[in-house]
């Protein structure tokens, strides 16, 4: 649904997006993570054809962003960084205006507007001009606008920013529903928990370059190394040596617990337990150490930063 091939954007002599390759299938959500100015919005703007790529290609819903720009725009629902609302309008007329632009029939527009207003809890606000809306309401209205024409591709730039927790939950649930409706979705976000919750794939972008990509688990494996496990024992370890197989690497030990890394836990963990029991240790608990996406993200960003410093030196 969304394929980019070495997508690049220069603004005069500034390289904003550097050979970005993305592949998002139907029913998939890709989270584009990165610091401010990393190139997330520029990438999205190229996918909406508002910006013209300097080199490389991109196809959205089967249409080339340079050759079939009109068809790309018709196939995309976009939640822009700025909400893009008209303060003197009312919600129904605002959505109806965009419905007309997208060529929707009057009856279809009416039904769809009613549905979306209900879905995003905006029915109580129909008699207020948009200028009187709170930030969260504006964000929900923008999202409703992007969904109005039921686009097969959704590009959402910071979909839950400025929302209270309840509204953010509502929007996240909506995005999950949309994924199940076979849409391809790209979510640009700083919110790592949100990315982990929503995305099938995550791409970390820094200085216009994708520095890591894959599923949350793949990224953890790729950037933080093999999984880490902790075993809690019933008795103190004292100075006893641990009977670990060679494929398990001891990383830390405490008074009555220790941690180790393994590349294939399904094969090695039973062996670790068997060795411990044979050596007379009483095992209380075995657990996987949780690794957050935040540590993945920081690791990826720092790794690139270190490489850049080395390169400069």
């Amino acid at each position, binding site marked *: 649904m969304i394929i980019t091939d070495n997508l690049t954007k220069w*603004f*005069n002599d500034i390289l904003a997006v550097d050979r970005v390759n993305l592949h998002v299938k139907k029913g998939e959500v890709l989270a584009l993570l990165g610091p401010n100015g990393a190139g997330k919005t520029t990438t999205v*703007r190229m996918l*909406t*054809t*508002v*910006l*013209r790529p300097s080199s490389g290609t991109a196809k959205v819903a089967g249409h080339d962003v340079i050759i079939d720009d*009109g*068809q790309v*725009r*018709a196939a*995309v629902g*976009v939640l*822009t*960084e*700025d*909400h*893009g*609302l*008209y*303060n*003197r*309008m009312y919600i129904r*007329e605002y959505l109806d*205006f*965009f419905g*007309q*632009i*997208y*060529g929707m029939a009057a009856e279809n527009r009416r039904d769809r507007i009613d549905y979306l207003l209900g879905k995003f809890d905006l029915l109580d606000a129909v008699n207020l001009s948009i200028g009187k809306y709170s930030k969260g309401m504006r964000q929900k209205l*923008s999202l409703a*606008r992007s969904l109005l024409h039921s686009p097969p591709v959704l590009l959402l730039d910071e979909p839950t920013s400025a929302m209270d927790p309840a509204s953010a939950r509502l929007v996240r649930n909506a995005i999950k529903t949309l994924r199940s409706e076979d849409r391809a979705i790209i979510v640009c976000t700083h919110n790592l928990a949100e990315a982990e919750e929503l995305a099938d794939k995550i791409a970390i972008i820094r200085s216009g370059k994708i520095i890591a990509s894959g599923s949350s688990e793949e990224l953890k494996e790729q950037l933080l190394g093999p999984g880490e496990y902790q075993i809690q024992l019933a008795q103190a370890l004292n100075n006893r040596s641990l009977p670990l197989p060679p494929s398990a690497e001891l990383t830390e030990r405490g008074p009555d617990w220790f941690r180790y890394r393994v590349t294939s836990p399904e094969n090695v963990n039973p062996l670790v337990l068997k060795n411990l029991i044979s050596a007379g240790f009483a095992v209380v608990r075995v657990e996987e150490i949780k690794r957050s996406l935040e540590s993945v993200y920081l690791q990826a960003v720092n790794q690139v930063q270190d490489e850049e410093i080395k390169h400069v030196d």
Partner: protein
Amino acid sequence: MWINLQKAMIITRREIRDQFRDWRIITPIIILTVFFPGLMNFTAQQAVDFVSKYGAAVIADRLIPFLLMVVGFFPISVSLVIALESFVGEKERRSIEPLLSSPLTDVQLYLGKLMAVMFPPLIGSYLGISVYLIGVFRQVGWVPDTTLLIQVIALATVQSLVMVSGAVVVSSQTTSVRAANLLASFIIIPMALLLVGESMIMFWARYEVLWWAIFGQAIIAWLLIRTGIAHFNREELLGIELDTLNFPWAWQVFKSAFIGQPGPIWKWWRINVWGTLIKLKWSILLSLLFTIAGSLIGSTQAEVFSIPADVLDWGYLEEGLVTGIEEIGPIRFFSIEGIGIIFIHNLRAIALASLLGVFSFGVLGIITLVLPFSIIGYFTAIASQTGLSPWTFLLGFVIPHGIVEVPAIILTGALIIHLGLTLVSPNDNYSIGEAWIRTLGDWTRILLLVVIPLLLVAAFLEVYITPLVALEIFSK
């Protein structure tokens, strides 16, 4: 076209509705539509009463149509304010991106905005004219001639189109309302001058001349709309660097355009000079046609403004040529100083034409260049009225140096047209500014390497050869 209009109307309807909810727009329109014509009625009444006391009814006769034009113009002035912020205002309010990301085409978006900013003030203008006409009929019983009424309505419409289309171009090419307002002087000043000209026509009561004003403004409006659509660029509307003056960048662009493709001198000449001349072929043809048309128009004026035969006696001319040719007017023939005078004069004419061309899509520049040809055409026709063969006249006074000078002027005209066309032609690779600077590079190269050498040769011929040829012909 119909689909374009239908889609454009979606934007137009929304924007007009939005404007009608803004008291800052509605209040001046109402004042200028209702109260201002009332004031003009009062003025007309007072003027008629006053001048009739002194038997100068003609002043009142001229004042009433003039006020009709003024009443039609004032509501239109509001359109400038709305149009200036049409695109850039949305950009500042950060509401433009969803529109740019929508399936609307550039033409639909542009036309939608254009119509939205034009309709309310124009309706205000028509209403203002109606209110004034009703008032003036009730007060002094004046009813306009149908043609004059059509002219005033057409004038209001084209003035609105020119102002709006110019302002929308400005609005779509700037990144802040402040910058757009500053650039608005490029619209306000020419419009003010135009209004002064139109006022003179109204007081002069040469109403048929108004058709030319309407026609000229319609062409300028069309060129401005074309320019706006050609250079409408979604990316630049979201850009932040558009208003920043960047002289080093501009100089680099100009230099690279001026130098063109580097290479050995002959190859460089073939590609960058000859190649540019070939690129200019249609502009050259157009310039040639304008020159011919100018000459023909000039020759037709000999019938209207004829010179009595006794004033133009070729015998005197012959005598003058033989006895005092070295010092006719400011030109010193047969002297290096004369070459300098003629060369500098021609250079000044080219500079003036180019400058005027820059601000008028080339139109005023071409008129400036064609004017001398009209004069030549006029005098050739006058000469033929006195029995002299036009060919003898041309051979004696024009052809010896004109054979070099005329191509130089036609080429200058082509360069001016080319500069103007750059503004109205779409260019996917460069911004409007960059495309224009590149064309300026071509302009400078051809001017320095072709036009100026030709003018120097022409000045030499005019000072040393033309008088000899004239002597030879007219002394026989």
